[in-house]
């Protein structure tokens, strides 16, 4: 029984991790980029203008 419960917990954690990774990909975010303070020197992209 404990194996199934732990399996379910791990499964939920994996889904949450997968969702986080997918959302980062979809929103073009990077965990290791820090907050905006790391990117204050960024100017607009020469290709897309954003």
């Amino acid at each position, binding site marked *: 029984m404990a194996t199934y419960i732990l399996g379910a917990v791990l499964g939920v954690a*994996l889904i949450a*991790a*997968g969702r*986080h*990774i997918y959302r980062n990909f979809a929103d073009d975010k990077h965990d*290791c980029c*820090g907050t905006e*303070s790391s990117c204050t020197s960024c100017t607009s*992209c020469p290709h897309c203008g954003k």
Partner: protein
Amino acid sequence: MSSLAVALTGNPNTGKSTIFNELTGARQKIGNWPGVTVDKKIGYLSHQGRHISVVDLPGTYSVNARSPEEKIVIDYLLNEKPDLVVDVLDSSNLERNLYLTIQLLEQGVPLLLDLNMQDEAKRHGIRVDTETLGAALGMPVVETTARNHDSIRTLLDVFTSTVMDKYHPSEKVLAHIARVEELRRSGLSEAALEEKIIEERYAFIDSVVAECVSVAGASPDLTEKIDAVLANGWTALPLFLVMLYAVFQITFEWIGQPMADALDDFIGGPLTDAVTETLESWEVADWMQSLIVDGVIGGVGGVLTFVPLIFVLFFCLSFLDGTGYMARVAFITDPIMRRVGLTGKGIMPLMMGFGCAVPAIMGARALDSEKDRMTSILVTPFLTCGAKLPIMALFAAMFFPDNAANVVFTMYILGVVMAIVAAKLLGGTVFQEQGSTFLLELPPYRLPDAKTVLLETWDKGKGYLIKAGTIIFAMSVLIWFLSNFNFSGMTEEMNESFLAALGTGMSKLFIFHGFDTWEAGAAVITGILAKESVVSTMGILYGVGEISAEAEDAVETAATLMQSGMANAFTTMSAVAFMVFSQLYTPCVTALGTIKKETGSWKWMGFSAAYMFAIAWVVSLLVYQGGRLMGF
């Protein structure tokens, strides 16, 4: 009613926008840092029966038309031809501000000089003889303090009534322009010509400043005294290296490593033991125990162990940044960067690469020339980002326990050297366009604000905690699955697993490097997905949990826990070769995606992945074989 078109130009942070707001009643955003205005703004007013339009141009240090701001300024001044151009100067820093003035005069732009920030200048004991300055340059000169209404009124009166046709460049200016023209005809190479012209301009500025600026009773301030040592031509670079070395000692010997060891003891000892006992008491299936202990704790725990090192390193770098020292690094490294065809400005995005390659690659947008930007993007991933740090720390602690900090420092230096070498090679082959020059305003030295330093450290470091809980966790489960299963189902023998098959394929590339085991090959593959995965793969494959149980009276550090497995797989030399390879090879997928986005090209992304792998392969081969030849 006659009309008058006036343009405000000048260096960043000289108060142009304040003057513009005072003149036009506008509420344009003002900041006390450079670069607040990034596009031109237009406002209108009427004075002495004239309808006046005022254009506030972006602040710029030069008019080489390389950066977007410079292009806006030079396009407007040369094509729109306003009736009057007011060059707003910071009176307390005349020498630097006149550099733009002289460039505008070389372009034939008629100017009215506004010596702004008089209050600042007076505080520093600086007096400017405006008549002498006007005569030296052949142009009208006004003194203002931007927030003082009376002085702005004076400026308005002067430029409304000034007839610029009455003013002509002085003999001194004409002689300077003639010398510059002569240099342009001399046939010098582009780089040499640019250097000569810069020298000529500063010689001119020095002679003007000597004539009309006096400094009364001012003694060098603290910043000047510190810069006399830290930014001195002879001592700057050695002191920079000493400072970096001290940061590594603090991180890997004095503070960071003891904290990492304590965390490692806890994860590898009490935590693993408690979880194992609990799972056994709950009668959890063996495979689930293995997944949790070997997979999740071995993989995620293996990465979490190094989080103290990452936080200590980022704290040190944020502290140095807060003191104003990191801005000096651009100047200190400028001579080296010039030798590889870049400028000191290029060091800024590279320094960001010590945290993470992603913002560093994006930060290259701030560079002026396409060559500088592309070169910076392609060489930044050579640097040791925070995700590579655990790899270096793990191997250094295991194979060089008495010299871990020195070994990690050497790997960081190797990354920097390879970035410089690659920049030189790319500059001589792929990108042959001339690099740019740069001017950067240096902030004064100050004691960093503790809250700012801590927040910045947290901002940078927390990403690794989030990654440990998400991508590293998911990767650890995947690696555990791949290392425990094959087409027949779960296997007792890791050597027969999916991961062993993948790792064996990759390991064929390293038969001359000393680390041609399938485990090392698998770590190289997972490291492309996320660099931390190299450590989590090692943690899982070399069985942290099992060794923990076997080690009866050993001190359970990362070194001892994985020692038996890794000591069998690596010799000292092959460990060094693996560190070198991990330091230099293909960036992680996130960095590759950013390169694709920033270059707008799959080709450059593929080039980056391939050339870095090739360089890493060659350099680690040379290190391993060279070491063996020397008897190591």
